[in-house]
């Protein structure tokens, strides 16, 4: 018997998963994907979504790419995986509807992937599991209302788990991370 080898698809999904896993384990610490821009969103989609789950994105092109995973396109109120390559004020209402889970099943809270820029913009002060003390990050190209909305909706163990994507870089913000806008 020979040791099985990773197919190219296996390899990129493995790399994407471990990138997301470490991003969520050390919130605010950037990890890197094998793709940038829209391809990064598609990569996260093919790693997490399949016919056992569903997704939502307001981006028509990305909808078509995510549909290839076999996942169902669902409304924002019920989609466990949501992708916002550009998050404007108009999309905040959609995001507000994303599921936060219940105390009986907090794992039903949505995973949200949002496009942004790092290194400029709003300074976020992060604390919580995965962060020894306090970590500060600069995040741009996001509507100001996002952090107020998150503060309203996310009360761990209920809430969303967010991946911020800028180019090929990813920051994880699990629901347990306290975000203070400075």
């Amino acid at each position: 018997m020979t040791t099985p080898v990773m197919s190219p698809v296996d390899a990129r999904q493995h790399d994407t998963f471990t990138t997301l896993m470490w991003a969520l384990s050390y919130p605010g610490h950037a990890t890197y994907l094998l793709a940038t821009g829209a391809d990064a969103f598609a990569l996260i989609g093919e790693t997490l979504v399949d016919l056992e789950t569903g997704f939502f994105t307001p981006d028509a092109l990305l909808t078509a790419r995510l549909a290839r995973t076999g996942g169902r396109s669902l409304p924002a109120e019920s989609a466990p995986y949501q992708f916002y390559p550009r998050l404007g004020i108009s999309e905040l209402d959609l995001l507000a509807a994303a599921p936060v889970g219940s105390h009986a099943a907090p794992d039903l809270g949505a995973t949200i992937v949002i496009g942004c820029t790092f290194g400029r913009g709003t300074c976020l002060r992060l604390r919580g599991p995965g962060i020894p003390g306090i970590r500060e990050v600069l995040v741009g190209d996001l509507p100001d209302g996002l952090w107020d909305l998150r503060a309203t909706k996310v009360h761990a163990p209920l809430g969303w788990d967010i991946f911020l994507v800028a180019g090929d870089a990813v920051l994880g913000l699990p629901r347990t991370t306290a975000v203070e806008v400075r």
Partner: protein
Amino acid sequence: MILADLAHPRQDYSYGFLDAFARRELRRRILKAIAIPGYQVPYASRELPIARGWGTGGLQATLSVAGPQDVVKVIDQGADDSVNAANLRRFIARMTGVATTTDTTMATIIQSRHRIPEERLTEGQLLVLQVPDPEPLRAVQPDSSQAREMHADADYAQMWLSLYEQLVRFGRFMQGASYPVIVNRRYLMSPSPIPRWDTPALHQSAHLTILSAGREKRIYAVPPYTDVRPIEFSDVFFQVEDQTGRVCTLTGAGQKYMDELPQPGGESHFRISDTGYVEKLLKTAHGEPSDIGPTYYDDTGRFFLPGVIKVGA
């Protein structure tokens, strides 16, 4: 172009044994487990070529995370060379092509049954603990639906009552391994049957811990730098097993977690349970180069993080 150029080469098994759907499902659950520290996330728990109860939960977690660049260490009660550990290690290596090691500091993934190594794990390392029974409330609430409601309500009063009853009846906490902990000030969690000696190693640890119960189909996690506090009273504290006076017959070292070896005359000999650590101590004793990492407990038995193990009870 011929058809063979377009097809993948034939393989007896999928990479990592699990099929793509199983792997993806596990990966989704692992991410949720990290996001909700201590919460037991249900998962499908597929069949594996070993029986349930022999580490299938930990094995599935390891197989879904490991890649060819990883270095894997597998231990069973601290031993790299026990039958369970050796078989799991061989299976993981065959299915993923990972390198294997007995050196804790070299490993990127450490799968363990019932121990945390003596050397401190660091950032970027993943500890996978095999879990026979993930439900810490089982002793006070045998109905798992009720237990899940109690977790939802953070209703752990019965655990405190049971702890109090132990004190009244026996004068001390009777729970040995699997000592229940509160994770991130929210969920009561079973740390798997690690001895109490290892429980403080989960508190504010630099590494990521994934705990997986294959038979019970539950996976949960302790992210790095997360509060993990054993349940205790404000005037009667959690204590680890006292290793004072025990000396390892192989290395002469003390103040590490020891296996007790009863002798025909009635006395006992002791050996350090972590065989990888013993290997390094023996190399050092023979003048060979050995890179021993810092340990959780120093030679006087003091835990490296002050205030985690309280004294004065």
